[in-house]
């Protein structure tokens, strides 16, 4: 290629969208050290070395993108609100059925295959004060099943993977509570596999780390548990999520074997600015438990 390729051709090459013949011609041209084409292509197809560094790329006008996304979000928001309004009634209907019918209904009824219903199942199965573990296990299993049936075309493939990861983590946690550590381990492995294909949301990851640290605690693998909690704590700090930080600190307190150190961690957790009453309640309950354990 003796002549310079035109701008649109260079742009398509930068996105890997040219035919092999055209790509070959452009690379040959670049190998011959064409400064102007290299500059043009580098500014359009390579990331800035440091964000904000000006390489002569034209600053974009994002107004149209914001307007379009705003409209799309509003539409989805309305659909999600409708799903959320319908979900509690659907759960009541499902729970009124015998156990074997529930699974069939959840598998076959498209009304059940919504994001909101799946979240509701998982929230119910993951209640912190678990009174009925077998019921929680049934709900968590349904949650995994429903999460596997959500339409990626509607909710987005990566978001569905996130929810599937959450569902597997909730199921694994219920199995841990029931003492089935082997299957809990498998559940967390499934959750992590799905999370890798997800949106990369650190909050989702932190929740799984918190649940997994409980398993490690039960297995007496404290060093690993603390490492997981430190990672969750780091994510919480980065996202300015004090609730998450509080939970991670609380878990650390639970796992500390020395009473003084644990109480200090609990104290730190309770001092987080935006902790909820639930968390404060958890902290004081944990501290009471710890004192009892020490006095014995």
């Amino acid at each position, binding site marked *: *290629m003796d002549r*310079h390729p035109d701008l649109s051709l260079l742009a398509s*090459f*930068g*996105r*890997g*969208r*040219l035919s*092999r013949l055209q*790509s*070959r011609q452009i*690379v*040959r*041209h*670049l*190998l*011959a*050290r*064409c*400064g*102007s*084409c*290299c500059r*043009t*292509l*580098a500014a*359009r*197809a*390579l*990331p*800035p070395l440091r*964000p904000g560094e000006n390489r002569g790329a034209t600053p*974009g006008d*994002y107004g149209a*993108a*914001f307007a*379009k*996304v705003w409209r*799309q*979000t*509003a539409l*989805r*928001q309305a659909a*999600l*609100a409708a799903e*959320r*309004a319908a979900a509690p009634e659907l759960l009541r209907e499902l729970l009124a059925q015998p156990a074997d019918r529930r699974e069939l209904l959840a598998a076959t009824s498209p009304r059940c295959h919504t994001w909101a219903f799946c979240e509701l199942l998982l929230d119910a199965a993951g209640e912190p004060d678990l009174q009925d573990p077998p019921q929680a296990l049934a709900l968590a299993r349904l949650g995994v099943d429903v999460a596997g049936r959500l339409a990626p075309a509607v909710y*987005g493939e*990566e*978001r569905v993977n996130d929810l599937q990861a959450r569902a597997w983590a909730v199921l694994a946690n219920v199995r841990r509570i029931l003492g089935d550590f082997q299957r809990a381990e498998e559940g967390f492995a499934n959750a992590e596999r799905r999370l890798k294909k997800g*949106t*990369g*949301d650190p*909050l989702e990851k932190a*929740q799984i780390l918190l649940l997994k640290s409980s398993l490690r605690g039960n297995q007496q693998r404290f060093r690993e548990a603390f490492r997981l909690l430190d990672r969750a704590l780091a994510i919480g700090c980065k*996202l*300015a*999520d*004090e609730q*998450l930080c509080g939970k991670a600190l609380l878990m650390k307190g639970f796992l500390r074997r020395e009473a003084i150190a644990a109480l200090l961690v609990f104290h730190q957790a309770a001092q987080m600015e935006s902790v909820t009453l639930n968390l404060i309640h958890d902290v004081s309950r944990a501290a009471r438990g710890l004192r009892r354990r020490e006095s014995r």
Partner: protein
Amino acid sequence: MATLDHPELRESLNLLLKNARPRLERVLRNFEIPPEDAEDILQDAQLTLLYKWDKIRSPESWLVGTMKKKCIMYWRKRRGSLCEAVDTAILDLLAVPQAPDQERAELTSDLNRVLARLSSRCRSLLKLRYGLGYGPTEVAEQMGYRTSSIRKVTNRCLAALTRQLLAVGFDRVPEGDPQDG
């Protein structure tokens, strides 16, 4: 945090998106995201926020952090496509049957000049790939890498090659060298 079913909370999501807009625009501008691709990144981040609204305690920090991450991923993907295109094109150029000797010599010399600016590890790896036509498994064996990690190493070297190939546009070219092709 209460749910989106309440109209006032729907309002709070809208308000957040409105308030966060200047920060989001700054992120897009800092990462030099082309406007035609900004829509996908924005939509993805905002829809994820919408679906996870009840779980997110600090939505604005979450949204800005997510946007930054998505911008990094965007460039990683684009760089990947570019590296792949460069790699395939070089392999094709070297494989062209019966190319005239002079043309082939010029190509080898141009390629060697770019390779010379890479680290010795990448230079050796790419010389095996381009010069001797080795496949990934053979390269791994020859260089003592595990087969499972050779893809990652090769990708890093291809990224370095692509950067060097395009870096000529930013370098001061020695006197007498042709600047334009």
